[in-house]
Structure formats: structure tokens, C-alpha cells
């Protein structure tokens, strides 16, 4: 059950089995199993679960900075949206002459605005490789620049949260403007194909589903490798007693910067997987409310657990889908209530609830070090 690199606990193993299993089974259930069968996965379920898993990657990324390093980012949606826009730009350029105005180079909205040339920011996005690079580079560079200034100036706590919120809000306003060059209010949509495959087809959707599940598993593996390393221990120590870490000689700002950038890149990749599955990216993705909702997913699932964050994202969004269908006007109340309840009664979230049941059998609280005992206790 234990690998030396990741020191996986039961929860981690279960998580990898489920995500990798979903990646393998998804396409079979969606494409091979006959539609009439009870096991068949209808296209709308494929799309919905794919979307949830993108949110799960975002939640996992947020948990890395918030749950482990204590940086409460209220603007992580910005990195998600930037990754999404980078992918959206590739998909726009794939439309080519099939647009309403049939311009082989310029996307429709540019023709509509009477633009004659492709803006520099759009150069290169006809190439999937270049777009994929930008999906990671743009959020990463923004996080690096932002973090470099914020962490060096020792901005922490609620002040940092407010600046992250301002960051995503500023980006939202910028992207809303038509002359900013990214489709303004309407954003980017009407995608036709990705790497030559029709984005609407069941096969493409199933492939995207699998890819998202694998990315989720990979994000967990990367996150887990980070948090169990000595670096991860230092990061947790920074969360718990920042100045103490400084006095034993660690450059706290560099430690924060690294985890922040990794997290932003992860969020960007999640956004890039999200856009082809939902078929649109617009400035509302930068809305501060989205970033705050992501914080709630992590809190509900259990911060500082990685698996919990992903679980929380899926659980809350499942509830959202149900609620907004059944009682649309009550969803925000339910979400707010959930946050209050979890904060008051489940400080460790859903994962804490799972651990609580297991802990009843043994007296000492489990930590990374007592995992061995924990496994014996459970046996």
C-alpha cells in the first residue's frame, strides 16, 4: 500500500484507482456499451462529469496553496480562465474559413469589429503545441510576477486574499472590453474542432473526459509528491509559523512562490480542458464569485488533503446541478449554509469525516508519521 515516493494512504490509492479507472471505463461506457443498456453513459453525463473533474483539478491546485501553504487565494479562477482563454484562442483559429464571415485568418468577432490584422497576442495560436505551452505559461508567468512582488513585500493573510480578488476582477474588466482583443463580452465560442476532431462528437467528448480524468490523477500525484517532500514539510511549517521558518534560514518568499506558480499552472491546465468540453469561454469565468466558490469546494472537501479538495469540488457541483434544476432560487442560500455548517462542524471537511470514523478505533491522531500504525489499526 505504501510507495516510498508518494507515501500514499488508503484515500490516495482509492483516488488514483477511481480517476484512472474512470479514464479507462468512460469511453467504453459512452461509446461501446449500447445506448439502451443501464450501464451506458449518455453524452450529457460525459460532459457533466468532465466539467466536474476540471473543477476538481482547480480545487486541488487551490488546496496546494491554501490547505498546505496557508495562502488563501480568492483569485484562482483567474488562472483557470487564462488557461481556458489560451485553449479557446486555439479553437477559434481552428474554425478558419468556416466562420460566419468566412475569413480564413480572423475570428468572426474581429471581422465584426472591422479589424484588418490578427493582433500579436493571437499569433501562433493556430498551433496546438504553442497553445498548450501558453495554457501553462500565461498563468505561470502571471502567478510568478504577482507572487514575486506580493511574497517579497510580505503581504499575507486577508490582505493577500483581497489583492488576489482584485487581480481576477481587473482581468474580468479587461477581458470584457472589445478592444482588449479577446472577444469582449461574448468571449470565444462556436468552436468546430480540436486537433482535427469535431468537438461536438461523442468520441471527442469521451476522449476529453479520459484526458481530464488522467490529468486529475496526475495533478494528485504531483501535488502529493510536493507535499510529502521536505519542501512540502517546509511549506506546511510556513503555514503554521511563518516567521519561525524564516529564523531557521528558509527563504519563505521563494517557497511560497514555487507552490503558487505550480498551482497556477495546474489551474490553467484545468481551464484548458474545461473550454472544449463546455464549448465557451467568456469574461464571466474571471468573476470573483467563481474563485470564492472554489474556496468553498476545498473547505467542504477538507483543506490540506488534496483528495478532499477534489471530492469537495465534485460533491458541491453535483449539488449545484441538482439544486439549480430543482430549486434554482435557493442554490446560493444552500451554498452559503453549507460553508457555514462545514466551518462550524466539520473543520476537516468530508475527508475529516471519513478519518473520524477510522480514528474511533485508535487513540492517537493519524499523521504522516503514524500512517503505518493506522494501517495496522485498520487491519
Amino acid at each position: 500500500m505504501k510507495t516510498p515516493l508518494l507515501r500514499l494512504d488508503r484515500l490516495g490509492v482509492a483516488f488514483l484507482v477511481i480517476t484512472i479507472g474512470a479514464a479507462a471505463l468512460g469511453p467504453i461506457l459512452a461509446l461501446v456499451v449500447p445506448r439502451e443498456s443501464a450501464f451506458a453513459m449518455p453524452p450529457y453525463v460525459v460532459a457533466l462529469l468532465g466539467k466536474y473533474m476540471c473543477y476538481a483539478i482547480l480545487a486541488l491546485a487551490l488546496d496546494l496553496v491554501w490547505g498546505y501553504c496557508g495562502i488563501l487565494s480568492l483569485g484562482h479562477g483567474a488562472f483557470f480562465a487564462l488557461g481556458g482563454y489560451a485553449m479557446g484562442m486555439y479553437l477559434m483559429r481552428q474554425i478558419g474559413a468556416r466562420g460566419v464571415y468566412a475569413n480564413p485568418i480572423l475570428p468572426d468577432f474581429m471581422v465584426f469589429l472591422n479589424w484588418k490584422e490578427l493582433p500579436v497576442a493571437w499569433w501562433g495560436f493556430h498551433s496546438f503545441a504553442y497553445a498548450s505551452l501558453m495554457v501553462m505559461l500565461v498563468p505561470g508567468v502571471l502567478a510568478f510576477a504577482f507572487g514575486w512582488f506580493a511574497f517579497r513585500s510580505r503581504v499575507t493573510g486577508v490582505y493577500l486574499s483581497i489583492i488576489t480578488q482584485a487581480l481576477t476582477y481587473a482581468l474580468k474588466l479587461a477581458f470584457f472590453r472589445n478592444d482588449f482583443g479577446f472577444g469582449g463580452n461574448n468571449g470565444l465560442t462556436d468552436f468546430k474542432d480540436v486537433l482535427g476532431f469535431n468537438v461536438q462528437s461523442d468520441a471527442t467528448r469521451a476522449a476529453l473526459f479520459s484526458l481530464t480524468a488522467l490529468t486529475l490523477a496526475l495533478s494528485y500525484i504531483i501535488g502529493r509528491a510536493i507535499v510529502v517532500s521536505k519542501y512540502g514539510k517546509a511549506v506546511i511549517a510556513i503555514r503554521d509559523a511563518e516567521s519561525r521558518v524564516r529564523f531557521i534560514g528558509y527563504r519563505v518568499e521563494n517557497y511560497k512562490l514555487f507552490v503558487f506558480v505550480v498551482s497556477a499552472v495546474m489551474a490553467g491546465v484545468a481551464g484548458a480542458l474545461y473550454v472544449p468540453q463546455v464549448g465557451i469561454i467568456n469574461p464571466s469565468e474571471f468573476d470573483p464569485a467563481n474563485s470564492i466558490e472554489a474556496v468553498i469546494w476545498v473547505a467542504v472537501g477538507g483543506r490540506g488533503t488534496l483528495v478532499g479538495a477534489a471530492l469537495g469540488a465534485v460533491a458541491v457541483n453535483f449539488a449545484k446541478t441538482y439544486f439549480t434544476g430543482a430549486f434554482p432560487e435557493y442554490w446560493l442560500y444552500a451554498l452559503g449554509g453549507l460553508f457555514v455548517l462545514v466551518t462550524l462542524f466539520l473543520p476537516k471537511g468530508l475527508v475529516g469525516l471519513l478519518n473520524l470514523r477510522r480514528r474511533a478505533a485508535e487513540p492517537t491522531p493519524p499523521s504522516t508519521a503514524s500512517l503505518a500504525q493506522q494501517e495496522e489499526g485498520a487491519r
Partner: protein
Amino acid sequence: MTEADKPELTGTLLYLDGVSVSFDGYKALRGLSLMLEPGEMRAIIGPNGAGKTTMMDVITGKTRPDEGDVYFEGRHDLTRLDEAEIAELGVGRKFQKPTVFENHTVSDNLLLAAKAPRGVFATLFGGAAAAERETIDRILTTIRLAEQRQRPAGALSHGQKQWLEIGMLLAQDPKLLLVDEPVAGMTDAETAATAELLREIARNHSVVVVEHDMAFVRDLGVKVTVLHEGSVLAEGSLDQVSADERVIEVYLGR
């Protein structure tokens, strides 16, 4: 202490001259001068507000002095360096309130403190080296926490946390240890054990101890500096300073 015009810097481990710090007009330190020889252990006493903690803040780079010189090993101007750089030079600090990493195990606390490369990538890809593990084992015995090594530090008693913090200082292997009120809140037995521990440490480290507890300072049996209103009032053995009239007036007489 008279102010030396041309102090011999090279010989001293720590050299403070004319250090002043003020916060919003309040003068926490006024012209504080202090010298510490390599290998020396020094006790600093003084009433509340005498500037003991501010002095530690200046030495460790947390607070920048308004004026004055602070040199480490006669070469390093500590007023120009930040906390991490000063720690790297070999200055370790124990806080008044025990601050250990509560969610980490006792041995992980020591691992984080242990002398090793501090870069992001060094800690990301390197685990605990064999040498580090040996150091940790040795320190666990010294601080009497070998039995508790796998317990989370948050579960330790107050006295044990203080020892763990001293152990973390040892793991850093600094040239100079600054120890702020190590026996505050300890039982008599713990206090005696701590004095013994510090004397043991002082055999191969320079140590500055800030303490209120007179019995404890007497136990240490080292040179004492008395601070009052941000500067040095008296210096000498505990018996000498206790006999000083001004000291009696501001501190001991109370």
C-alpha cells in the same frame, strides 16, 4: 561600559555599538553596546521594557536599527541582512513563547531545522541525508525526546516544546544561539534540567540567554549584562551586578 573608540572587531563574535531603535517615538533601545566573545555564554537580565527582545530582533534582522553598528564575527554587518541570511550565517534564535511546528512530528521539526541546503529545489528533490538522520538521533537524546520522536509536536507538554525548540537550534548548528526566556512557565525540575542542557550546549556554542528567573541565572553561573531602558546598566558576575546600587534600584529591589 565605556565606549571604545577603535574596537578590535575581529576578536568578537557579536559586536553591538550605539544601537538605537524607536517605535513611533518610543525608544526601545538607546545606544546599546554589547560584545560577546567566541564560546562565551552570557545572561541578559532587565525589567520588562528594558529592550531585551528588541535587541534579539535587531541581531536576527527582524528589526532594523535607526543607528548603530551590529557586526557578526567582525565581518558581517547584520543591519544589512534579512532573517534568512542571518540564520545562514549561523545565528539561531529561540522565541519567548515556544514556537514549534505543531503539525509536524518531533523528528520532522528537527529535520526542518537541521543544517542542510535551504533552496526550494534542494528540499524538493532531496530527502533526509544519512548525516542529518544521525544528527537528529543525537539531538533527540540530548533534549530527552527520543521516545517522542514520532509524536506531533503539538502534543508535547510546554517544557518539552521548549526543549524541542532548543533542539531545533542545535540542529541548525549555529555559531551563536539567542535564547529568549527558556524557563518561563517551567516547573523547578524542568528549570534545573534546562540549565544543565544550556550549559552542555555552551561547551561548543556561544549563547545569549535572556531570562527573568534569578535562580536560573545563578544556576548558569555566567557573566551577566543588565539592561535598563534600552541600554546597558551594569555588567559582571551575578554577585557583582546584584551589589550594584543602580541595579538594585531599577530591578532587583522591586
